[in-house]
């Protein structure tokens, strides 16, 4: 069984934000919600580097561990998904997440949180595949169509890789060997245990 992983190669990311835009368009996420973002360190300085980050679909997911209503589940592909019908918008998953992945549409006064929204690895949610409800709540289910996440598919420099962890590793390892550099699998030690 595949274990889906994201990997962003910071030697290749040019901070074009195409992944962010593609994701937002593909899933029609609400205003103010971005499932993916690009962060640049040392912006404008020598050694500037960028990383595209979204939910990393952790093995021992902190969001899953702290959710008071237990609305998260991990699919057979290692994708961490959640049930918006159960979510109460408490914000705990945001407190626990190392990557700042959970997003909340504002609902009501004083910044009260609505139901959480996050990257689904383009794998939809608990609703029936390709159903209208799934599209409304979680966006497109590209995995069920046999496709990989759009952010990575769109990436012009192929910095952002998404797919089976072993294949992603192979591609990256080949790159590193050609580069004669040191491997820097961004976020893997934090996100993955297997």
């Amino acid at each position, binding site marked *: 069984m595949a274990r889906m992983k994201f990997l962003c190669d910071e030697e290749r990311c040019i901070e074009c934000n195409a992944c962010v835009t593609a994701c937002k368009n593909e899933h029609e996420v609400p205003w103010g919600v971005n499932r993916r973002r690009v962060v640049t360190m040392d912006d404008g300085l020598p050694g500037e580097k960028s990383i595209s980050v979204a939910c990393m679909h952790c093995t021992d997911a902190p969001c899953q561990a702290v959710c008071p209503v237990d609305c998260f589940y991990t699919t057979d592909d290692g994708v961490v998904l959640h049930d918006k019908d159960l979510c109460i918008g408490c914000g705990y998953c945001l407190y626990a997440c190392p990557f700042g992945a959970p997003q909340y549409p504002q609902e009501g006064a004083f910044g009260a*949180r609505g139901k959480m929204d996050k990257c689904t690895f383009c794998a939809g949610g608990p609703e029936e595949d390709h159903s209208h409800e799934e599209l409304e709540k979680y966006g497109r289910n590209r995995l069920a169509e046999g496709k990989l996440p759009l952010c990575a598919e769109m990436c012009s420099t192929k910095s952002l890789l998404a797919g089976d962890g072993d294949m992603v590793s192979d591609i990256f390892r080949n790159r590193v060997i050609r580069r004669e550099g040191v491997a820097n699998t961004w976020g893997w030690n934090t996100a993955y245990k297997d």
Partner: protein
Amino acid sequence: MSTTSTLSRRKKMMAWTGLVMLMAIFLLPMTGYISTGFVTAAEEQVREQQTNPRSDYWRLVRNNTEGYSAVTGLEANELIQGSGQVWRQLRNGPIATYGSWLIGFTLAVLAVFYMWHGNIKMTHPRTGQTIERWTLNERRMHWLTAGLFVILGITGLSLFYGRLVLIPIFGHNGFSAYAEIAKWTHNILGPAFMVALLSMIVTWFKSNLLNKVDMEWFKAFGGMIGDKHPSAEKLNGGEKMWYWALATMGVALCLTGLVLDFPNFDQEREIIQVSHLIHVVTALILIAFAFGHIYIGTIGTEGALEGMVTGHVDTAWAEQHHDLWAKSVIKKESDSH
């Protein structure tokens, strides 16, 4: 040669040898510089610039350094925040475990105490005469705070332990529906509780200052052990303890609650995490305290609830439990007549 001169020469030799050894200790490790020469500050700087840029980048990320992100949003320009894991482990680990022990232990102690002592009866028959203990406004304030405390306690505990205790009973859908209501109830009534609690803290501040009488009361364990009932003013040592627990932990509970309740002020996650931990810990301690308070005020002591319900207590009860206060009130009344 005389023996004395030999001895002094030996001493001199020893002193010299010691000095040479000491010098060697300091100088020998520096012989490395013979081959390398001393490193100048400029050379050090060159060496610093030679760090691995990927490591530098990773270090910035791990230190929660703020970068730039075209996506605007709170803390969107940080890649990793490590404190969330600490929060998770403290909340799900020791706090959840010891919190349940604390509440379970408190309930067990109260149950054992009830089996041992039962309802503490009045030692003298009722006189039929009553004196005012709580005014109408004080009682309104008490019951408002108490009611809110109970609702907030139940909804709060549901969010903390519900996944463990209530999901197996109600199922995911049933519990989620309740938890949604619980969250809103908790968030809306929280600030109201704060107002009620603060008014109570202000109103009863003077009568809760600790003094010598309370020290004696504590020494006698409030009369729980032995037959003698220690002296007490309007409020005994235990009640004052409860007051000060609320005046300190209760205030911390309210303030941290505000941090959690209003995300619109853009407070960052680290502040929220710390607030949440303080909120849960103080809440659990106060809930344990409240069990004790409710027990003593209801089934634990005959006649105690009357004071907070009707506002008046029998003089026999007052003299038994709050002798100094009873005396002063009765004296005041007889003086005014």
